[in-house]
C-alpha cells in the first residue's frame, strides 16, 4: 500500500556536523503533534546510522531514509 502524507516540518541540516542534525530534529519535532511527519535534509554521512539509532531510542518512526546525490533525506513520524 502506498500512503501519501504531507510533511509538517522540514529541518534543513545540510552542511551541519554531528550532533546538529539530530539535536535540531529533536528540537523541531517537539512542535509537532503525534502522527505528524518531519523531513530532515542532511549532508553528514554519519547521519544515516544516527537517525536509525535515534528513531530506535526515541520511538519516532523512521519511514524514509534516502540519498539524492550528496543530500540525505529522512522522514520520521512523531510517536
Amino acid at each position, binding site marked *: 500500500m502506498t500512503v501519501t502524507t504531507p510533511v509538517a516540518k522540514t529541518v534543513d541540516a545540510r552542511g551541519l556536523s554531528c550532533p*546538529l542534525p539530530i539535536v535540531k530534529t529533536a528540537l523541531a519535532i517537539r512542535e509537532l503533534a503525534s502522527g505528524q511527519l518531519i523531513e530532515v535534509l542532511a549532508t553528514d554521512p554519519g547521519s544515516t546510522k544516527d537517525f536509525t539509532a535515534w528513531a530506535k531510542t526515541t520511538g519516532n518512526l523512521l519511514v524514509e531514509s534516502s540519498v539524492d546525490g550528496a543530500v540525505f533525506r529522512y522522514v520520521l513520524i512523531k510517536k
Partner: protein
Amino acid sequence: MTTTLTRPVLPPALVEGLDDPESDGAVKTKELVIVAESGDLERTWATTILASTAAAGEMKVSIFFTFWGLFALVRPEVRVTGTNWMQKMLAVMNRPGIDHAKLSKLNFAGMGPWMMKKLAKQYGVAEPRELLEMSQALGVRLIPCQMSMDMMGITRDQLIDGVEEPVGAATALELMTGASATLFI
C-alpha cells in the same frame, strides 16, 4: 511537500526490559549525569555534544559544573569574578565564559582555539556555547557546585540564565548513583 511511504519500518521493541523476567514492563527513562570538571575547550565541547545528543535522545541529563568547569557557566559579559585578589587573579589568568575556554594543548595564546573554531565553522560543527544553549532548550539541568563558587568567588548573578541552585558533592553523588551513565569530563 508530500512523501510517499512505500516501505514502512516496523517500530523497534518500544518497551525496554520486556525480555527481562525481573522487569515490571515499565519504560525506564535513561539518565545521564556529567561531572564537568575541566574548563578546557575540547572537554567542554565533549560535555556539550554528549549532553545535547543525550537530551535529543530523550535521556534525562544533568551536568554538575565543578572547579574549572564552573567558568563555562559564567555570563559572557563578566570579565573578572571573585572578591579578593587571589580570586580576581584566577579570573584574569583564566578568563571566565564558555567562549573563552582554552585548549589543553596547542593553545598558543588563543591562536589554537581561534583556528579550532574557524575549522568548526567550516565543517558545520556547533560551538560549545550553541550546544549548551540547545541542551538547555532540550531540558538539560545545569547544576553549579557550591564549593567551587565559594572558593572562586563566583556569585549566582554572574552565572547564565537557567542555571539551577548550587549544590554540594552529596547531591551530585545522589544524582550519579541513580543515573544509567555517569561521565567525569
